[in-house]
């Protein structure tokens, strides 16, 4: 897949991995050409190329710890899963340990330890990032830092019996985004963007007098925040870690499309009702069908496979939801399921054609 400028890696390690993959692809294709009799290298030149590539691969492996074989790549995937599990379990351990001991501490000791832990974890992240080029340990520690900051905000509020406020979401989002951009951590980026959107939704609910803790029953602000996140993926940035544009896009598409499922089906429950209900019903029905189609079309043009997949998946679920909404009470059950089955087969045909089209580009 040809990458756009926004998706070009700016991380040296990612550049190195691309170079390794390029060398491997060249080596395999050269062997195929020679086997087919299309190309025959002059004597000595093969050895020269192999010597050169050997030096390049050895240097890259030593400096950036890149994966040179498929087995190494699979192990790298396993390491990512292990690091995620490690981060979750260690974060739980930190939080539960604090709950176990905090009642034994005086109030000043509680506050000091709550503030110190996320700061110490930030320091640990920096030390780990400097020592380990792959940053698996750094990513684990950064998630623990984020969890400890969330604990910090939550427990300080409990100690002083404070009224809950959505500002904690804004603070945590700022923390997560700062750490994510510093160390190129996409999971933390996604968490930070989601928390920022949560703050936006809660702030609007709070401003209208609603109890902000149930603000998800009014998800309409996401219809503005989603496109903002998608727009942020286009933001030109001198140094943006690989995958960040894709993460912004995916979170934005999810924030834009998911609320439509609820707003279209249960408008009276989930809408702020700024317009008459019948107008809102029509607007959300049209948006629910139209926006995913636009996302699929644009995703194909820009070669954003993830956006195409996400929008396609949403469209299928949305169509099913609307079929249930319109016809469940009107037609016999067997006819309803026959209709859904026909729609499923039709979806498969259309998605199959989309898949072929993606392959061609």
């Amino acid at each position, binding site marked *: 897949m040809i990458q756009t400028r926004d998706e070009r890696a700016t991380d040296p390690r990612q550049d190195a991995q691309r170079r390794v993959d390029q060398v491997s692809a060249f080596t395999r294709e050269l062997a195929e050409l020679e086997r087919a009799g299309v190309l025959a290298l002059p004597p000595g030149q093969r050895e020269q190329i192999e010597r050169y590539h050997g030096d390049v691969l050895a240097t890259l492996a030593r400096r950036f710890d890149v994966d040179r074989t498929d087995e190494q790549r699979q192990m790298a995937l396993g390491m990512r899963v292990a690091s995620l599990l490690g981060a979750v379990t260690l974060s739980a351990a930190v939080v539960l340990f604090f709950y176990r001991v905090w009642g034994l501490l005086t109030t000043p000791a509680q506050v000091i330890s709550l503030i110190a832990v996320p700061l110490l974890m930030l320091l640990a992240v920096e030390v780990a990032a400097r020592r380990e080029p792959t940053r698996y340990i750094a990513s684990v520690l950064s998630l623990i830092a984020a969890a400890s900051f969330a604990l910090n905000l939550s427990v300080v509020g409990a100690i002083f019996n*404070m009224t809950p406020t959505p500002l904690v979401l804004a603070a945590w989002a700022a923390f997560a985004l700062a750490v994510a951009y510093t160390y190129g951590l996409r999971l933390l980026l996604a968490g930070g963007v989601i928390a920022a959107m949560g703050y936006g939704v809660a702030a609007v609910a709070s401003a209208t007098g609603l109890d902000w*803790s149930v603000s998800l029953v009014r998800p309409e602000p996401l219809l503005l925040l989603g496109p903002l996140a998608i727009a942020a993926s286009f933001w030109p940035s001198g140094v943006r870690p690989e995958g960040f544009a894709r993460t912004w896009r995916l979170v934005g598409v999810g924030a834009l499309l998911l609320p439509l499922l609820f707003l279209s089906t249960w408008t009276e429950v989930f809408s702020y009702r700024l317009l008459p209900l019948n107008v809102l019903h029509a607007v959300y029905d049209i948006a629910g069908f139209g926006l995913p189609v636009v996302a699929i079309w644009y995703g194909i043009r820009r070669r954003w496979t993830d956006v195409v997949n996400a929008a396609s998946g949403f469209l299928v679920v949305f169509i099913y939801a609307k079929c249930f909404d319109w016809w469940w009470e009107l037609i016999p059950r067997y006819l309803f399921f026959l209709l859904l089955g026909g729609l499923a087969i039709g979806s498969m045909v259309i998605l199959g054609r989309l898949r072929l089209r993606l392959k061609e580009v």
Partner: protein
Amino acid sequence: MSRKGLWVAAVVVIVSNVFALGSAGINRGGEPDAVLNLTERELRLAPREAENTAMGLRLAWIDPAANAQEPGWFDAAKLAEIGFDCSRPVTAENASHYRTQPPRSTYAVLENEGAAWQRYLAAPPAGAEREVLERQSHLVLIDVGHDPSALRARYPDRRRTVVVPATARMAFVNDGKRTPFLRGRVSVTYPMELNVPRHLRPVLESMPPGARYAFDRRFDRLDRPGQPLADAPHYRVVVKWGRSLEPWIESVQAIGQTFAR
């Protein structure tokens, strides 16, 4: 790679905590908004968990009109005052309009052993025994509103009434026998649990395990054979509410030697 983000994250941690601690300091500075003497009836020990060594007291209050067959003081007018949309006729056709309205933030006024409590004792719900009622919390919900200053002006007794942040819900009551009506209720007041600082825990920790005050002997589902319930609360708590209407526990004292054995 630039490490500016690392410094930004550290600044976020520090600024957030300075803001939180500053807010707590402002809340506790100056004259408190309310000072109430409460007992175990109104502040009940939260269940202790092995994984959590913190200790909290849960504020308990009653709303005598909650299950009444009429709107009472928390009627459609009061609901509209705090922001609910009550513009449509209250009929079965508009039930969906009323039932789909989400809860709203508001302020609630709680009165401790005041006129509302005396009225409640004098005219108890049908079938309720006075002895049972007296064991309940003596903190009664008496009003709600958007403006805490206006509520405080209306209820100036700071030793008997407290204004607290709360969440209110609307109920569309239609039992088919009478005209539908709207009634509000306060679903939660904040904070739900008051943290007990370490230096105030000895009295509460000295209570024998299993010693419990009979909040409602008839409906107490926690009654266990072999664990007799006390007839009087075990402790008294002085709670202050500050400028931001956030409380703190000032003192905890044992009431005589009333721990049940």
